[in-house]
């Protein structure tokens, strides 16, 4: 293979414009990894909440404080984002949205849907 010495090497990550589907794909991995890191904490909260009424009440009060609400909403956003980019993945598997314009529209929809879920939960809780 002849190496083209003049080929452009242009890997400035701030200058490369990733299409929306690419951003969504990276976010699917980032949110997934983040959720895995949260797993031990989630299991701990599940265990405590089932253990005794005092522990349950403490979790409920902490989740209702301003800081607790922000933490809950961030986790809801991470989960919803992973959920909706995952749904887009599953739809791609069965051939829905694999043309470029539809794939891009669905990527935007995945972002919109997760933000809508955060807004809805934020209003309801």
């Amino acid at each position, binding site marked *: 293979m002849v190496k083209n010495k003049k080929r452009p090497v242009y890997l400035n990550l701030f200058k490369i414009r990733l299409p929306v589907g690419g951003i969504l794909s990276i976010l699917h*991995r980032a949110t*997934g*990894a983040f*959720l*895995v890191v949260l*797993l*031990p904490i989630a*299991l701990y909260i*599940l*265990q405590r*909440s*089932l253990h*005794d*009424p005092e522990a*349950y*009440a403490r979790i409920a009060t902490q989740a209702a404080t301003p800081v607790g609400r922000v933490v809950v909403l961030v986790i809801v956003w991470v989960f919803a984002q992973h*959920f909706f980019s*995952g*749904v887009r993945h*599953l739809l791609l*598997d069965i051939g829905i949205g694999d043309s470029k314009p539809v794939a891009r529209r669905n990527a935007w929809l995945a972002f919109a849907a997760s933000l809508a879920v955060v807004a809805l939960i934020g209003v309801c809780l």
Partner: protein
Amino acid sequence: MSRLRSAGSAHAGVAEWLLQRVTSLYMGGFVIYAIVHFSLLPIHGYAAWKAWFATGYVRIAWALFLASILIHAWVGMRSIYLDYLHPLWLRFSVTLLTALGLLALALWAARILLA
């Protein structure tokens, strides 16, 4: 050339692919069921929460949910490592640590479910 040799056989990965889809469908179904259930019948207080969790089918659904999470986490993290961790020793040790961590979480989850 070394890249080609490590590519493995053509059918390897089908099981992971399928597991990732099956577990995602189950988890999605479980989460939607839980959201609808709690919206229609909000749980007030520890006693109701504990009683709901103690119901036979709920506990089985939780067991499948937690197992799905751990399998999904394993397949997902492994595919991230395969893409980004190139030194073999690093990929091997991080994969091993993840496996042990998820196994520990599985045992812990079993303890919660059987309590």
